[in-house]
């Protein structure tokens, strides 16, 4: 158990996936939902969540079919080697870009609320160096870290929700069932992107000690995140109201600013939310970084990923410093995930699935004859 054999348990995997999904998306999730479907945003959320559960099961199924194989090997087995090189590069670019942009959003929030004069580069270096340090020993340490943070974080989050419960005016959640079905479908991409992060299953699946149970793990993780998102949406929309939520860049943080803990010695609960959120964001950056790290190692047929960890840092730093402003950051993030998200999460896995199904049918066909 104490050996570093690069194996993680199902529970560790679930923790990693949950914490990886909960990151920058929750900050503006309520605003996006109101923009897409007004007070019916929760319907988009539930529908989108169910679809994402489906895809996470698909990812789990792919990994399950090739236990212990890396994603590069899976793609080369199913779709030939050149495609595998392309897929690995694509994945690598995706993980690098998403790590950098998430880091940048983190910096923007931090600079707004707490460290207005600290240079961006220093904050980015601070969190990335911590991520590199955590990733140096690989997935096993990351899994333990996720388990270590996951449960206390959950307790704090639920305590905060309990405190916000008194502020909620449930009338703010009305009216429901007023949005046309087409508008709800149109809102699905937004929700889909706020769930991004579960695709690390594809990369980390090879380290599982019991890959057979993976399909369920993805579904469990996504459902927990879906429940958290529903809670957040109720809490934020209920306490601020539709029109106000639309005006705020990060409605989640603003909501918790208005909470008054009865008899508490802390004037501003926002500080607690902020520190909890920094843990969550760190656990988004670190797995994404590690996934990118593994992708490039597989691409170069390296044996040990840790040598490539630190050299990636300047690339991420460079991309993170690229956007000029907070507006640009969100703009780039939207464009970037548009070009990569669908391919990584939907198209490639579906092609792999098709290949698996065809190959099995062929096998059966030949044995039958």
């Amino acid at each position, binding site marked *: 158990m104490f050996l570093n054999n690069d194996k993680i348990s199902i529970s560790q995997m679930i923790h990693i996936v949950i914490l990886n999904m909960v990151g920058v998306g929750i900050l503006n999730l309520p605003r996006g939902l109101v923009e897409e479907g007004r007070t019916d945003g929760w319907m988009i959320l539930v529908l989108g969540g169910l679809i994402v559960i489906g895809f996470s099961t698909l990812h789990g199924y792919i990994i399950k079919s090739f236990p212990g194989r890396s994603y590069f090997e899976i793609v080369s087995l199913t779709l030939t080697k050149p495609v595998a090189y392309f897929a690995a590069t694509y994945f690598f670019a995706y993980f690098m870009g998403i790590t950098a942009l998430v880091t940048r959003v983190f910096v923007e929030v931090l600079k707004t609320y707490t460290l207005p004069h600290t240079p961006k580069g220093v904050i980015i270096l601070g969190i990335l160096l911590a991520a590199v340090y955590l990733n140096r020993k690989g997935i096993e340490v990351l899994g333990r870290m996720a388990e270590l943070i996951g449960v206390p974080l959950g307790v704090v989050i639920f305590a905060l929700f309990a405190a916000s419960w008194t502020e909620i005016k449930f009338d703010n959640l009305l009216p429901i069932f007023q949005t046309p079905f087409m508008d709800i479908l149109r809102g699905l991409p937004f929700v889909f992107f706020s769930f991004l992060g579960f695709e690390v299953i594809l990369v980390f699946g090879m380290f599982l000690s019991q890959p057979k149970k993976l399909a369920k793990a993805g579904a469990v993780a996504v459902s927990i995140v879906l429940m958290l998102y529903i809670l957040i949406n109720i809490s934020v929309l209920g306490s*601020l109201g539709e029109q106000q939520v639309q005006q705020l860049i990060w409605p989640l943080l603003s909501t918790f600013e208005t909470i008054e803990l009865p008899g508490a010695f802390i004037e501003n609960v926002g500080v607690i939310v902020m520190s909890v959120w920094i843990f969550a964001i760190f656990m988004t950056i670190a797995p994404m970084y590690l996934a990118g790290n593994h992708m490039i190692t597989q691409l170069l047929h390296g044996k040990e990923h840790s040598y490539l960890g630190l050299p990636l840092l300047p690339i991420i730093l460079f991309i993170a410093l690229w956007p000029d402003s907070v507006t640009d950051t969100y703009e780039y993030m939207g464009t970037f995930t548009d070009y990569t998200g669908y391919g990584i999460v939907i198209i490639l896995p579906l092609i792999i699935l098709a290949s698996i199904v065809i190959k099995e049918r062929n096998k059966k066909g030949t044995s039958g004859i």
Partner: protein
Amino acid sequence: MNKKIALLLTIIITISTLTACWDAIEIDERAYVMSLGVDKYEPPSGEPTGEAGAREDEEGNNITADVPEETSRNRFSFTYVVPNVEFLVGESDIPNTLYNSVGENLYSVSRILTTRLNKQVFLGHMKVLVIGESVARDPQLLREILDAVERDQFISRKINIAIAPGSAKSILEVEPLINPLTGQFMAELFKNKDRSPRSGGGMMGEILEDFHRWGNTVIPRVIPGVADIKVAGSAVFKNYQIQGWLGEAETRAVEILRGTARPGGLSVRYGEDQQPQERHGHDYHIVPVDLIYLSRKFYLNESEDNISITIEIKTEGEIEQFYLDTKHDLLEPDMIREIEDKICTELRDQLEETIEKLQKEFEVDVIGIDYYLSRFHPKLWEEVKEEWGEIFPTIDIAVEVDTKIRRIGLTR
């Protein structure tokens, strides 16, 4: 040796990276603004402005800086109340320092203020924002200020906001006897749990919510005294512009109608309409009732052509005082019923009067019928929302009050 070098390096790196020296600020380098007053800048009439306005003493030395000129840049006049730290520890007799400065916007004035203040102006601990009537009359100025306050990441959404008839500066100049720290005193007035519903809630977050919704709201009024400040009554806003004032009883009525009233007291006159021989020598007895519970509900009567709203108010009360005699018996159910009816009539009259004023005089819906319709009757709301400002004065509003007297104290 290597270990020692490594240890040394670790310590140096840790010290240099973890201290966050860019944002380090000492607590005594900041001027904590407890309350901020916002007025429209009006140059003193008849007196010279600019450097000519600077007053001199007998020997010809300047004793005041020059009076600000009336230019397009001098739009606001801000009053910053900074509590004196030495007063808090008992070393000084001056509780507050007031800084008054004029300029184009809140940010630049706060920055320019540092030319005559040796500290950084920090608004993060602000408790109360007082807005002068002149700003409240100008929607553009008001919206600028509210946006600046909402946008600022350090100003909490929990601060209180009040409108001053006249200037905000005159409010902040008062040093209340019980707590001379003006900002803190006003914040405590707002926070008082026993506070009567004679002024609105006045919390910044809620006011902003209202403004973002349809631009209409009520904001508490604050009135200066000689050695105290009173938060009572309220200002009615329509499209970010003040429409007029509501008195204290009217404000309570609006708060009840909005469903945000804290329960308060109400006095009725028992026996006013009785025959002279039953009066036992007195015209009537005053009965103050403590209302311990209030709830309000809207109902839309769908059958009628015109929009017709029924407002149902439910209250519970305790009798606080009657009359020291043996003839009346409050344990008699009929008598309680009679007092209950009186409370209902009294409350209904007050509410209807206020509704009339809102509909006919101010023509603005601040009691939340728009909110009710948009939540519970979204189809109807879609039809009327564009012209709600014109429709609201014409709708029928009926008030139904139901009172239960639960307790009568220790005597019959």
